[in-house]
């Protein structure tokens, strides 16, 4: 966990502007140099809209292109992962993407079915429409299944029922205050998102965290992963109607959330991250309590995980269900445990010099089959890794710390943080101490497009299980 090993990284991203005619070429070149597509967003710039695409790497690259007659060439043939980004930019900023046909609405809901549903033909196919209100305690979103018998031919998703305009609402707000808009995007990934925001602002200002601040923030984001992964294992048990497993892991989740409350005063660790400092800190007593409770949780989680492994009727429901193969995971730009379950070895923790991960290496399931079984197993493996990291960190000073100026200030900052569901990216553009444009592209946003192909060929009654195995959030997609 050598914090000093990473100080060679540059802070702010390189902002490169190209003409619309050179947009595709510039994007191809970024990909050819081994950079990974991270996000695409639009912004209003006196008249015509501008489109920007972020590519990760040692120094992030933010490509920018001014639209002509509100039109920019589409890049979705080069980067299928940018499909939702382009649809969103079209809905919210009126940008047309030449070559993106049909350009279906994403954020805006058309009353005309043909506008957003893929036409399905064949022998007796029929539709089942579900939501936005679901049968359980679940967030709002609409699914339209196209079926033959009980087998799923195709699934159209319609999310954004919960669109609150959080990104736009943050515009003009002070850069320290706007963190609350990011924080309320989603409770389950609150720490990961606010941390991405804080680091993005700090990167724009050339600020670097002290070791104490890095350790404290890493501790928080791993605490968040613990309760989320326990929740997800419980949810997968619920997805097959296995009440005993569901309740046992729900009880572990409750204990993890009570620990959050004990340490931070909030069961979801709300408001523990701030720009340039840490509102959260633990004294010796707090660290000792955390360590003891986490060790008990770890032992109980291991015992209960073994009980799940030896439950044959539960295990029989998991294999070959909701398969995403590696090539599809790469093509769709999937992130997090779901990507790793398919063998797509991406984990932003191994590229997070601002946090205390050192030489962290991502976990992999025994068989990278990309099915429900692999997505369940990866959670259990990562849970154990997180307990190890937390145990090590609890031995250090977790009282926060300052940031130090290391580079010149810029008007753009970016950061990627690996939360429980995967990497979430935050891009900030600043003007006079205020937010000019905020883009939060969450892990759930990256993975939702994979749910539709994952369910094809499966039975409709297995959908809740497949959906739970991704356990994606609607709130932070809709924002």
């Amino acid at each position, binding site marked *: 966990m050598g914090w000093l090993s990473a100080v060679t990284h540059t802070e702010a991203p390189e902002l490169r502007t190209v003409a619309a005619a050179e947009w595709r070429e510039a994007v191809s070149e970024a990909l050819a140099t081994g950079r990974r597509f991270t996000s695409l967003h639009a912004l209003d710039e006196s008249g015509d809209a501008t489109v920007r695409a972020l590519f990760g790497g040692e120094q992030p690259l933010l490509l920018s292109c001014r639209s002509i007659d509100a039109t920019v060439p589409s890049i979705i043939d080069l980067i299928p992962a940018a499909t939702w980004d382009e649809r969103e930019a079209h809905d919210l900023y009126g940008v047309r993407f030449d070559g993106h046909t049909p350009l279906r609405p994403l954020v805006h*809901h058309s009353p005309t079915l043909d506008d957003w549903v893929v036409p399905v033909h064949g022998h007796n196919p029929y539709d089942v429409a579900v939501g*936005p*209100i679901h*049968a*359980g*305690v*679940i*967030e*709002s979103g609409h699914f339209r299944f196209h079926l033959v018998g009980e087998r799923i031919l195709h699934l159209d998703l319609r999310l*954004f*029922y*919960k*669109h*609150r*305009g*959080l990104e*736009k*609402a943050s515009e003009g707000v002070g850069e320290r205050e706007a963190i*609350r*808009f990011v924080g*309320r*995007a*989603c*409770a*389950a990934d*609150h720490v990961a998102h606010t941390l991405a925001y804080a680091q993005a602002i700090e990167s724009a200002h050339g600020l670097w965290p002290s070791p104490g601040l890095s350790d404290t923030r890493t501790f928080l984001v791993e605490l968040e992963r613990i309760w989320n992964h326990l*929740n997800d294992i419980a949810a997968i048990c619920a997805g097959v109607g296995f009440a*005993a*497993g569901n*309740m*046992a892991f*729900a*009880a572990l*989740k*409750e204990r993890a*959330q009570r620990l959050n409350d004990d340490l931070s005063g909030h*069961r*979801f660790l*709300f408001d523990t991250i701030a720009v340039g400092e840490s509102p959260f800190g633990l004294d010796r007593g707090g660290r000792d309590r955390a360590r003891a409770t986490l060790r008990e949780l770890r032992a*109980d989680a291991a*015992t*209960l995980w*073994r*009980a799940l492994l030896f*439950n044959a009727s539960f295990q029989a429901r998991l294999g070959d269900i909701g398969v995403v193969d590696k090539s599809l995971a790469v093509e769709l730009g999937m992130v997090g445990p779901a990507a790793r379950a398919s063998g797509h070895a991406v984990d932003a923790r191994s590229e997070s010099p601002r946090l205390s991960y050192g030489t962290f290496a991502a976990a992999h399931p025994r068989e990278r089959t990309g099915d429900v079984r692999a997505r369940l197993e990866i959670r259990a493996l990562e849970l154990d890794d997180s307990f190890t990291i937390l145990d090590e960190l609890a031995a250090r000073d977790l009282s926060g710390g300052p940031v130090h100026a290391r580079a010149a200030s810029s008007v753009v900052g970016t950061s990627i943080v690996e939360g429980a569901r995967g990497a979430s990216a935050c891009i900030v553009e600043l003007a006079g101490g205020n937010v000019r444009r905020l883009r939060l592209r969450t892990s759930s946003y990256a993975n939702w497009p994979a749910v539709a192909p994952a369910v094809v060929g499966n039975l409709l009654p297995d959908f809740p299980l497949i959906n739970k195995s991704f356990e994606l*959030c*609607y*709130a*932070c997609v*809709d924002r």
Partner: protein
Amino acid sequence: MFVLLKKLQEIKAEAATGAPPRRTSLALRHVDAGSCNGCEHELQNVSNPYYDLARFGLSLVASPRHADVLLITGPVTTRMVEPLQRAYEAMPEPRLVAALGDCALGCNVLGLGSELVGSVERVLPVDIRIPGCPPTPAAIAAAIFR
């Protein structure tokens, strides 16, 4: 399986509240009208072994048709107004509406004015108010029992 059940029995003994059983029941239907998912997590937690509200005759039901109480979370987005009203209309009378969480109560609402209605009260008559961001499972339970 034996391990799981034994563990659950231990928790049950540990979490026993000593509250007497009730003769009445209440069926709750949840509608997410734009929350951050925090209220949903806490509402789910109300069913975990530490609270286990089914013991007191409370159940979360699948349809508004079966519900006595509509539990609503979130600042009511413009896209959720219609589904919310339709869920309410589908309920049998007498019926109650509970606004769950600070967003549903209209306090501290974050977001664009043009995308939000702002509080449940602007759409439906509210009978039960459960403040908190999000309210804890204990607070949810206490508010519903009152």
